[in-house]
């Protein structure tokens, strides 16, 4: 073969030979794999979100009943002296009977009352939470006794479920807690304007409720508890984490001891969170004698858990500051501390904040360590304002999700999904904040 032959056979760049084709199709295949991988992720997210939103959005709307209630002085204040101590003797059971009678009177007046339905069955349309609300109103304003007030009461869980499509006539026929006749009455009352579905801010503000009244269960205590813990984590983990990483990064000598510390920090970041719970139980509750179920102990445990994350992120941010800036500062005569606090730290701040917020978001979603320190509990009272509130019992958002899923009444499924939505909104807000901070302050060299 001569040289001329070869030049004749040299393929044009415009016609692809077999190997180029193979290379190109390999690339194409790889791209398809990538798209499929992203697609699977997006699909999983869509399925998750649609199932959570589908079953949880109902929690943000609630069936309300409005009826006139005559506050009978004979029942509520038999002695007639309006003395708070005597008024408190009328329990929620008395108020419950009063409400049942009031509702019966109201539906009879409108001609809706089905024949043969007992007062108790009609009263079952009202939530068991309503008597407590009414009682608190009366105790706060004793002059209401003897008058007739317009009262907005929560409807019972099954009635609420009926208007949200969870309970049907067919299921009610089999259900021991509600009868089709009660549902028919509820439908008539809705047509008459006595029942309506309204927005439910109480889901965010109310405390948890027992299984007899899922309709009034809310996230108030859990949100407060989570907020208190996040405050403690932020106040403790950020300064400790930043101080530790600055020392390790800038001052510490390179020896076996600091190597050991570094390995340990990397390891701690991967330790299962329940281990921190065991530690918290042993150290903070059994040894230091701090109160159980309190956000203080929860916050301390979560601080321990978040520290490694913050330290690793902070060290990465410090490392990313170009050495030329440090050298320049040192060169014009700044001390090491001045260099760090005047130049390195401000430049590393966006990275540190991002790491901290991601660490906080992680801590916000943590349940396992709280299990052991008594925070997975039924807590009905709001914790007081800080700092005393740090010692009061409280729940946390993920704990509330877990608690709701354990309940027998199917109405709690909606509550659990609603709580997940709230938790997701908080996480999303925190992550967006982290992205914004990074965008806003990050400097590239």
């Amino acid at each position, binding site marked *: 073969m001569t040289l001329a032959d070869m030049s004749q056979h040299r393929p044009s760049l415009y016609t692809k030979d077999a190997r180029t084709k193979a290379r190109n199709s390999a690339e194409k295949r790889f791209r398809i794999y990538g798209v499929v991988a992203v697609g699977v992720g997006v699909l999983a997210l869509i399925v998750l979100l649609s199932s959570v939103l589908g079953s949880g959005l109902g929690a943000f709307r609630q069936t309300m009943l409005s009826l006139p209630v005559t506050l009978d002085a004979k029942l509520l204040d038999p002695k007639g002296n309006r003395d708070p101590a005597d008024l408190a003797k009328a*329990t929620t059971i008395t108020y419950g009977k009063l409400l049942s009678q009031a509702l019966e009177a109201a539906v009879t007046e409108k001609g809706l009352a089905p024949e043969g339905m007992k007062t108790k069955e009609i009263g079952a349309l009202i939530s068991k939470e309503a008597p407590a609300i009414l009682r608190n109103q009366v105790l706060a304003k004793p002059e209401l006794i003897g008058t007739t007030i317009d009262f907005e009461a929560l409807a019972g869980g099954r009635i609420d479920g009926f208007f949200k499509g969870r309970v049907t006539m067919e299921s009610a026929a089999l259900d021991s807690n509600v009868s089709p006749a009660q549902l028919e009455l509820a439908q008539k009352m809705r047509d008459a304007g006595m029942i309506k579905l309204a927005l439910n801010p109480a889901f965010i503000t109310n405390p948890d409720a027992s299984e*007899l009244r899922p309709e009034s269960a809310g996230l108030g205590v859990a949100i407060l508890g989570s907020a208190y813990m996040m405050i403690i984590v932020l106040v403790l983990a950020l300064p*400790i984490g930043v101080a530790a990483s600055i020392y390790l990064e800038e001052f510490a000598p390179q020896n076996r001891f600091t190597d050991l510390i570094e390995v340990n920090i990397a390891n701690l970041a991967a330790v299962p969170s329940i281990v921190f719970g065991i530690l918290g139980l042993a150290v903070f509750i059994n040894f230091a004698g701090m109160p159980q179920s309190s956000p*203080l102990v929860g916050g301390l445990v979560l601080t321990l858990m978040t520290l490694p994350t913050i330290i690793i992120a902070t060290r990465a941010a410090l490392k990313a500051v170009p050495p030329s800036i440090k050298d320049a500062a040192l060169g014009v005569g700044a001390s090491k501390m001045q260099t760090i606090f005047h130049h390195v730290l401000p430049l590393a701040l966006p990275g540190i904040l991002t790491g901290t917020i991601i660490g906080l978001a992680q801590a916000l979603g943590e349940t396992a360590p709280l299990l052991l320190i008594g925070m*997975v509990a039924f*807590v009905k009272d709001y914790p007081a304002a800080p700092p005393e509130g740090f010692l009061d019992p409280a729940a946390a958002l993920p704990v509330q999700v877990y608690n709701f899923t*354990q309940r027998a009444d199917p109405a709690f499924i909606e509550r659990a999904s609603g709580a997940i939505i709230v938790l997701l909104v908080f996480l999303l807000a925190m992550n967006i904040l982290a992205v914004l901070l990074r965008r806003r302050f990050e400097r590239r060299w």
Partner: protein
Amino acid sequence: MNTAKIGVSALAILAASTAGALARDQIQSAGSSTVLPYATIVAEAFGENFDFPTPVVEGGGSGAGRKKLCEGVGENTIDIANSSSRIKQSDIDTCKANGVDEIMEVRIGYDGIVFASDINGADFAFTPADWYNALAAQVMKDGALVPNTAKTWHDVNAALPEQDILAFIPGTKHGTREVFDIKVLEAGCKATGAEEAFVAAMGEKDGEKACLALRTDGTSVDIDGDYTETLSRLDANKNAIGVFGLSFYQNNTDKLRVATMSGIVPSTETIADGTYPVSRPLYFYVKKAHLGVIPGLQEYIDFFVSDEMAGPNGPLAAYGLVSDPELAATQAMVAAGTPMGPLN
């Protein structure tokens, strides 16, 4: 800036740990997840109607609750342990060793255990012997112990439908499992004569234990979670039978079809009069040293066993508790603060 912050936070820790020694003003209880809903109902009503804070109620299981109760005396230990099985001598010994000398035992009522399947499935009428023959590792056949090969409920008892055996039973950490073991498996073991054969072969102690050995071919599945998990498993597997608490069943009657046991339909009435065989008492245990120290503790336990709460027309009965016919005696005992005697 950082040193200041660290100083402040160190102070915060210090202040917090000293404040931790201050008085606790709400009651704390923990224990059985079966008693948990009842305890929350009472706690809620207590918080509404009394001037005391609402008690904090934690789950975690009967054994864990009793262990926490026995950790010692003082404000960072719990006041009440809820339990779906009776306290054990080992618990009492631990309590004694940690300075918890006097405990009050309060029986709040009874709880039934029901066997239920999907609402659209077939009807079942069980006896303990059916369950033993369906789930035990070894069963009696023609007078000899043989490995269990039954495939369908029909194989076990000709009166039962032709449906594959698949049972979701509570895991061993549950108090409910103990009742299932004793009232169903052991009773069935006795009824079929297998116990006699086991005892003859292995001696009394091992023989009784052998009654509780279940087959391991996947026909019986231990559920370690709650009844909600059992329900969702039933939903996914319509052919299965699940074990539930009566109150859970009563809240989900539109999804579950309950089976009879020895011809009796489970209900609060049949459990109260003792004809439905699978039931158990529910308890809570109070640390006596905390009475008078934790505000409202005495009022709370009085309220718990009062007629308006635990009586047959109270909210606990409405939720599924079978109220105790001897409630009056319990009320007197609680009011007098009588500690429990030695276990018999």
